[in-house]
């Protein structure tokens, strides 16, 4: 709009100027023409001719008045219609003049006429330029009117086109949103030939491309998920498979190292201890990896139970004290009022043990403190060390997987770099929080906040269940007895027969079962040994590995014996009372036995 007004203004000025120029030229040419005509009649006083010329000239509408004077200023001829000055007043004017009175415009011109350089008279001529001015003014009014109309029309058009465009764009935006929401909208305006049409076509093509890509992604996702599941399964299986022989190595080497029969010399004992220690480390590593893979799969669960924090701390202190002593590090703990909370003691212990072992590991001399406090809602356990500390730029990454402060840390201090990551995840799992503050070369404070009552919203339903123990130390604790605290289980003795056709595989299970008071374990080599021994008045349970080799269990049918089969592929499950999926988990087996006592059958 601004440009229209600008252009029109320029146009006005141009028209005005050129019009003025034209008028000026017209006036000049009229004057010089008239002068040429008048010179002879004036010089000879031919007044008739003079009158004739003047009158004829006056017939031009733009000439208002003409007065001719001779050299003595006598009026030779005149036609005088000018109303705004008397003739005498006009004759007093000595210079050209432009006069504008309301809508009338006049140009007064005075011309001294000469013939052969001698003055012969004066011509006064008044031009009426009102018509030209009126024409310009009319033109201006018309143009302004046209501009207003034009602006109005263009505004209306712009409004309609604009709103139509906005409408179309809104529809297209909605379509784009729908595409984003994984809907499959029909893209409008594809038949249009303008930019909107191009946009619609592009959007349509994008939608088709997106669909194709989504399908491909979906396929890839399925493939990936499958392979991931295979990986997880593999990892879990492998870990279990690795753990079983390791357990055997550990137990056997530690038993042998005791040298109870005094047949080993110092060298042997030392080597056996190295084997035990290496086995321990390897087992820890496998446990870490197994935990991480469970975290990844979202399968890590917690087991809520009454937990005595003071006892837990004391246990932990007792466990870690020898390790600290070895490094000449003072391990301190504060006295803490006995407090029982509902949480997962195993996970808390796992976290704190990890923190403590880190603290001891990264402290070369000084003190590691285990400081326990509480407020109304939480138990707060701080592990304070005077170790190497963590640089500021690394502190935010220390809970990331496989990250120690730098690559050299692993080489210098050992460890997988998984501990803190697992601890952090576990802290969340119990509804708590793990945080750290540290100063380089001064030490670190790791703070574990444990809610006294688990905040259920923080813990998904799936995680609250009785679950497997993967910790090595569970073998050495009275963990299994906890079941008896929780459940009202018959306390009579149960005879468990174990078809020990896989001594290495069953080793850890045998140890675990032997620890249960209510169980009497009888190991058999072949099934035929079994039948004569069956006690008809009590519950008989046979545990057997059906993967190892084909076992003919048909003979056992109809006898009062429950069959607990261990298998990795769940084939040949006919006549089996309870199937336990491999790898063998001691707790699961014990739990299964308890279930059978309650009359449960099926698959665990």
């Amino acid at each position, binding site marked *: 709009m601004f440009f229209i007004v600008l252009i029109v203004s320029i146009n006005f000025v141009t028209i005005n100027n050129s019009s003025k120029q034209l008028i000026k030229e017209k006036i000049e040419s009229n004057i010089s023409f008239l002068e040429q005509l008048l010179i002879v009649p004036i010089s*000879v*006083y*031919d*007044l*008739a*001719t003079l*009158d004739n010329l003047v009158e004829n000239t006056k017939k031009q509408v733009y000439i208002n008045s003409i007065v001719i004077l001779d050299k003595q200023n*006598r009026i*030779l001829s005149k036609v005088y219609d000018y109303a705004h000055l008397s003739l005498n007043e006009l004759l007093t004017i000595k210079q050209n003049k432009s006069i504008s009175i309301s809508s009338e415009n006049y140009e007064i011109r005075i011309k001294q006429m000469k013939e052969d350089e001698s003055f012969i008279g004066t011509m006064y001529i008044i031009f009426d330029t009102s018509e030209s001015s009126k024409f310009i003014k009319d033109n201006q009014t018309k143009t302004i009117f046209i501009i207003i109309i034009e602006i109005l029309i263009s505004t209306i058009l712009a409004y309609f086109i604009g709103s139509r465009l906005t409408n179309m764009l809104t529809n297209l935006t909605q379509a784009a949103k729908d595409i984003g929401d994984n809907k499959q909208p029909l893209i409008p305006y594809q038949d249009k030939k303008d930019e909107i049409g191009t946009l619609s076509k592009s959007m349509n093509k994008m939608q088709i491309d997106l669909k194709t890509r989504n399908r491909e992604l979906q396929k890839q996702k399925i493939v990936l998920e499958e392979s991931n599941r295979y990986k997880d399964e593999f990892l879990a299986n492998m870990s279990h498979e690795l753990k079983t022989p390791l357990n055997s190595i550990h137990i056997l080497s530690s038993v042998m190292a005791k040298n109870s029969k005094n047949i080993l010399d110092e060298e042997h004992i030392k080597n056996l201890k190295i084997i035990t220690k290496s086995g321990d480390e390897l087992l820890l590593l496998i446990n870490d990896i197994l935990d991480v893979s469970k975290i990844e799969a979202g399968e890590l669960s917690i087991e809520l139970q009454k937990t005595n924090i003071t006892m837990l701390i004391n246990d932990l202190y007792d466990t870690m004290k020898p390790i600290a002593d070895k490094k000449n590090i003072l391990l301190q703990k504060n006295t803490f009022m006995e407090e029982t909370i509902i949480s997962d003691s195993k996970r808390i212990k796992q976290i704190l043990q990890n923190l403590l072992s880190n603290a001891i590991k990264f402290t070369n001399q000084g003190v590691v403190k285990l400081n326990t406090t509480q407020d109304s809602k939480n138990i707060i356990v701080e592990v304070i060390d005077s170790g190497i500390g963590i640089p500021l730029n690394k502190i935010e990454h220390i809970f990331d997987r496989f990250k120690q402060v730098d690559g050299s840390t692993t080489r210098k201090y050992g460890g997988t770099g998984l501990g803190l990551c697992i601890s952090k995840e576990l802290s969340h799992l119990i509804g708590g929080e793990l945080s750290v503050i540290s100063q380089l070369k001064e030490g670190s404070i790791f703070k574990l906040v444990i809610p006294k009552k688990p905040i259920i919203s923080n813990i998904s339903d799936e995680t609250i269940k009785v679950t497997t123990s993967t910790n090595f130390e569970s073998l050495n604790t009275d963990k299994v007895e906890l079941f008896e605290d929780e459940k009202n289980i018959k306390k009579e003795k149960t005879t468990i027969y174990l078809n020990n056709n896989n001594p290495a595989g069953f080793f850890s299970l045998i140890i675990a079962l032997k620890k249960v008071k209510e169980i009497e374990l009888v190991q058999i080599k072949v099934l035929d040994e079994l039948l004569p021994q069956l006690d008809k008045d009590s519950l008989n349970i046979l545990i057997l590995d059906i993967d190892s080799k084909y076992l003919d269990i048909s003979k056992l049918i109809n006898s009062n014996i429950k069959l607990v089969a261990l298998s990795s592929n769940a084939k040949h499950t006919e006549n089996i009372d309870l199937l336990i999926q491999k790898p063998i988990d001691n707790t699961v087996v014990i739990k299964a036995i308890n279930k059978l006592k309650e009359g449960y059958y099926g698959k665990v």
Partner: protein
Amino acid sequence: MKKVILIILIAVYAIATELTLGVVPQQSPLKLSKKWIKVTDYLYKETGIKIIFKTEKSIPKFEKELYAGKYDLSYMNPYHFIIANKTQKYEAFTRADKNIVGILLSKDKKVDFSKNNLKGKTFLFPAPNAFAATLLPKFEVNEKFNFNIDKEANVLYVNSHDSVYKGISRDIGFLGGGIIRTYNNFVDKNDKDKLHIVYKTKPYPSHPIAYHPKVDKQTVSKLQKAFINMPTDIKNRLSIKNFIKINSNEYDIIKKLGVKE
């Protein structure tokens, strides 16, 4: 063969009897031709004499042709006739019956024609050789009041009778020469109201139609008769009431005006 010779003879005769009529250019040639072609047509019809109308662009050119005897017949003013009569022996044979009177005009009602009063005053005349408006007044003022306008006063020749009348009215001159007819026709009321006729000359014979001596007397006689019997409508076109039979002696009075060759 006889017929052919006869036709040739007639043709030669026809060529031989073809006469030219030169008319003084007092008006534009076109206006003049419109008036005078009617006259020549009439004369041919009446007399069988073929007459060719001729005029010139200006009076001096006309005078030159006339004084060289180029025209067989000619309509001219009395002053031209005196000279043409003297140089080429033109003889007048008819003229309009009216007489010419010159007048002098002024803004004053009465003018004192004494030498004292007129001396140094400005006189306006249409042209130096205008017979009635210039020559007659100059002659009579000199005759009657012993005042030589050319020598003792300023003279402006302003091209036309109307310019004289306007010039007097607008104080360009004190006295101006004219004739009754043009004064009567002068219509500019503003100017005319201020004018007064202060002097009238004696009547003088008007423009003659003369013949060159090479034209034979019989032809002249035929033409003279035809002019006198001219129908009224053609005469009206010439603004002439009647043609009368005259001879050259009538213009002797003009010779006294002191016309110079």
